[in-house]
């Protein structure tokens, strides 16, 4: 872990309230693994403001680039919005325990809103591992409405099929992401095909995916989103109950095995 001064390369809109921030952060870029995150000091905030954690959407060791996909929700992300290419910010990373890359069967990834961020990096790394031979990852993405379905083109460019569900039915299935996911799980089970589940997004969705992993007896890797203070394991603010007690999301996670989690 280090605290790297990172220069903003690009800051692009990604639809309503979402933005993609690309930074030149060569040390973090070369160490990053999928599911890990960075802790960003937002330049315009006062000295006492806490850092904000963001999953690594993409990291490229060759170009030294780290990309983040974030949603504007409160004052920290609002202030981050104002950051311009050429400006520098401090970023601790790469932090936390990410997703294991080795998996059994088809990697089924469920994301909600900005929860797709770590899944893109994960899909990319898994595909690089396997050299593109099937079973390749499949993405199931949910959102309130069409505008919350992010990074679709990025996944498509990787060759990852994307199944969509929206609460209002404006895109894909109407309902939760579990609608297309359950369909796919049923199909794989019918064919006796093994699969591994990955999830990142709102708590309700995470629990639903974790339940499916337990029911199916497959591995499920769940990335938890907890408010953080330090991001490095020093403060014990970011607790997740697990079968072995209170774990810290920032260092024991954010990715946990579905079977460890206590809800």
């Amino acid at each position, binding site marked *: 872990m280090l605290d790297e001064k990172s220069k903003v390369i690009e800051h692009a809109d990604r639809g309503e309230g979402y933005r993609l921030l690309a930074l030149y952060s060569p040390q973090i870029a070369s160490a990053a693994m999928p599911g890990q995150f960075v802790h960003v*000091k937002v330049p315009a905030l*006062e*000295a006492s403001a806490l*850092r904000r954690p963001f999953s690594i959407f993409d990291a490229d060791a060759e170009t030294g680039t780290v990309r983040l996909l974030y949603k504007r929700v409160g004052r920290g992300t609002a202030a981050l919005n104002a950051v311009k290419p050429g400006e520098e910010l401090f970023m601790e990373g790469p932090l936390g325990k990410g997703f294991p890359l080795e998996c059994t069967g088809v990697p089924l990834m469920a994301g909600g809103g900005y929860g797709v961020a770590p899944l893109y990096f994960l899909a990319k790394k898994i595909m690089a591992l396997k050299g593109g031979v099937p079973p390749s990852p499949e993405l199931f993405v949910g959102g309130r409405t069409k505008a919350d379905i992010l990074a679709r083109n990025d996944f498509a460019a990787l060759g990852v099929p994307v199944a969509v569900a929206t609460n209002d039915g404006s895109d894909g299935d109407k309902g939760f992401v579990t609608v297309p996911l359950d369909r796919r799980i049923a199909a794989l089970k019918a064919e006796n095909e093994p699969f591994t589940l990955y999830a990142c997004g709102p708590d309700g969705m995470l629990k639903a995916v974790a339940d499916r992993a337990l029911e199916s007896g497959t591995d499920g890797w769940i990335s938890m989103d907890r*408010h953080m*203070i*330090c991001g490095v394991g020093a*403060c*014990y603010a970011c607790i997740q109950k697990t079968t072995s007690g209170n774990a810290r999301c920032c*260092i024991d996670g954010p990715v946990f095995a579905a079977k460890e989690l206590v809800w």
Partner: protein
Amino acid sequence: MVDMCVDLGPVRLATPLATASGTFGYGTEYMGAVDYSCLGAVTVKGIRLDAWPGNPMPRHAEVPGGMVNAIGLQGPGVGMFLNHYAPLYETAFEQTGIKPPAMIVNIWGGTVEEYAEVAHIVAGSGFSFIKAIECNVSCPNVKSGGHTFGHDPMILNRLVSTVRKDLEMPLIVKLAPNVPDITPYVKACEDGGADAISLINTIPAMVIDIERRKPAIANKTGGLSGRAIHPAAVKLVYDAHRASKLPILAMGGIYEAKDAIEFMLAGASAVALGSAIFSNPGVVREVYDGITEYCSRHGFTAVRELTGALEIDA
């Protein structure tokens, strides 16, 4: 070259900078981001006899000028600390080649006897880098815990003398800030045989989420730390320094060298960085450099000359 070595009573520190308990884990978490060569000491998270689960989530809320936390002293028991975390600290430094900063072990308990037991276990553990025990008698987040000890000078005195008895390690007592006058508490520590005091712990505080009409923190109330509390902390250090000769480890809202220097001029022998590290681990280096620059500019050859160097007009 400014001599940065200070004595916190019997505890010699290579620099006047420490970290504050609860903000720096068990000492190794910030490796890579914090410049450990600037640290004279690391204070670890509060330890008691047995493991403690801490409070429910959420455990903190950001506020202007700082944060309110109610971690609730989650931690392993003293056994696990000595078997796992202390050796980890030792080996982590073996790899880096940096001399490990002195470790101050922050302790707490549910009874006076428990405090004493934990202190003696730590003191007898034999780790050469553990240089002092800091008794937290003032955590606002644990009701059955330190609260009452720190707010009654008589109980405090009994606690300090009980822990002190036969303890072969320097004892620092960490006091609560929310008192009308710090003097009787400082005196209780002095009379009880404490080697130093540390000031201040967080100020009791509360944040309400008005949209949900509920406390923002599961524990309802917590402790305020950060920039916001610094001027209050300086006052308490100033008062404590005038009340007794006990050396002071000062903390509360150090975000820049100026804040640390204020504490030393007011009477602190050493200072600890807490919340500021969360937002900027580089602050340790910045404060260190700022202090040496200040000393050079003002003609101090040793940083310890700053202690109590405030000029007060009659």
